[in-house]
């Protein structure tokens, strides 16, 4: 596989190669990502707002009078609320992405390595899960376990592991007959040693990219569930919860409740998407076409 040779020696060499110098869009995406990350992490940490109390004197103030982003219907500063919501959304998305990747790698390796009925079962499972509308599954699970963070993450992992498992399985099927794996078998290595020393490292790169690209997807799913009012409870508001408030606020003409959370939602998904696509391009030796 010419792919794995390139993929390894790696990132160091590759990233210094002129051909792979990031295009402006990618640099901007990284910068936006850093900024958003800093904002989401630092602002709630420094300010610590009490979301359970309300200050109706400051309710629904426009940007300017009510701080940078204005205030919401309960009088909270939207600048802080968006940061807090962003942090929760990102945390859930990251947890989901890591969990799905681990689960996907596990099942992918299992399917690719054992073959036979195990492989057929897992493949069938992937096909079946893929055919179902994922958000619908999420809606059911989350509405049964209302407000549970674990249920949200579980429902997201349940529908997100498939892609990673597919990639890993395909990679392992390709490697199963690689000569270095045959040499490893002949030299007396056990199945688990081969998985650990040869197969996991080979599928790690692709899985990491898959993980990055899962993050925007997970943000979407979670915010959709929260938007529908069955996700997180109000005092653990994610971006989706904030946007659920926006519908009522819109009718009162408070556009800022829609604009700022949406802006961050789009910026986060867009920048992670661009960065992830660029990483894929680098791995495949082609520059991402953005």
């Amino acid at each position, binding site marked *: 596989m010419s792919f794995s040779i390139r993929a390894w*020696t790696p990132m160091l060499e590759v990233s210094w190669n002129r051909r792979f110098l990031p295009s402006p869009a990618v640099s901007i995406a990284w910068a936006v990502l850093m900024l958003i990350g800093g904002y989401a992490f630092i602002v709630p940490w420094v300010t610590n707002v009490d979301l359970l109390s309300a200050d109706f004197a400051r309710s629904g103030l426009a940007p300017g009078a009510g701080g940078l982003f204005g205030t919401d219907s309960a009088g909270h500063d939207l600048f802080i609320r968006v940061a807090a919501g962003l942090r929760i959304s990102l945390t859930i998305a990251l947890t989901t992405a890591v969990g799905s990747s681990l689960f996907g790698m596990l099942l992918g390796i299992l399917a690719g390595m054992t073959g036979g009925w195990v492989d057929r079962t897992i493949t069938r499972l992937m096909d079946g899960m893929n055919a179902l509308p994922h958000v619908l599954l999420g809606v059911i699970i989350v509405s049964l376990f209302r407000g549970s963070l674990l249920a949200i993450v579980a429902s997201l992992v349940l529908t997100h592991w498939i892609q990673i498992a597919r990639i890993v399985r395909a990679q392992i099927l390709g490697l199963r007959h690689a000569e270095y794996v*045959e*040499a490893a078998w002949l*030299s*007396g290595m056990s199945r688990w040693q081969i998985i650990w020393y040869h197969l996991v490292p080979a599928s790690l790169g692709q899985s990491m990219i898959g993980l990055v690209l899962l993050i925007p997807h997970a943000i979407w799913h979670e915010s959709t569930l929260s938007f529908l009012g069955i996700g997180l409870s109000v005092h653990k508001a994610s971006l989706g919860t904030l946007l659920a408030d926006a519908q009522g606020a819109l009718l009162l003409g408070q556009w800022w409740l829609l604009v700022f959370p949406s802006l961050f939602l789009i910026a986060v998904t867009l920048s992670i998407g661009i960065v992830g696509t660029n990483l894929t391009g680098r791995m495949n030796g082609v520059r991402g076409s953005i």
Partner: protein
Amino acid sequence: MACLKAENVIVEFGRSQSGPVRILDKVCLTVHAGSILGLTGPSGTGKTTLGRVMAGLIQPSYGLVTCDGFSVGNVRGRSGRTVQGRIGMMFQSPRRSCNPKLTLGKTIRQIAKPDVDVDELIASVGLTCDLLERYPAQVSDGQLQRAAMARTVAAKPNYIILDEMSAMLDPATTATVVNAVRRFVANGGGALLISHDHELVGAVADEVRNL
């Protein structure tokens, strides 16, 4: 006497219109410990297939392969557990037979038996120790093939199968690897040298079979 032996091995692949294609037809071959058996023949006669069958990478359709009296099963499965590690193999392309993500040192140390002195082994195939820190992409084909030889020997097999090992090498490297094979055989191992190069086989092997 200790030997790696193929008896009446038949290998059939796939299915064409006139039934399965028979690659090997009732082949018998014995590699004795302490000697080098050369296997030559035009391309397409199943030299490589026979080598892989004897290593346990391919299961013969009929017939039996035994190693020191034990049956050689599928090396990837339970049936090959008894002889796993007793038969080593060197492949034609070192690029494909070494994991590009592992340094040469890791590749060798991973499978070396505890009593093997890797540094000495490396010196014996004419490499210096600093190469051990490099990745396959950072060394030449010849260096990599020597490292592959060191790896094969490091697992301390009783027999080694060398499949067209010199096809991509310069004469000097070939000589080094051949020396390593001779040393291995002198220590009581058996070797099966598969090559289309009659001169090489004639010069190295104790006995030559034409397939």
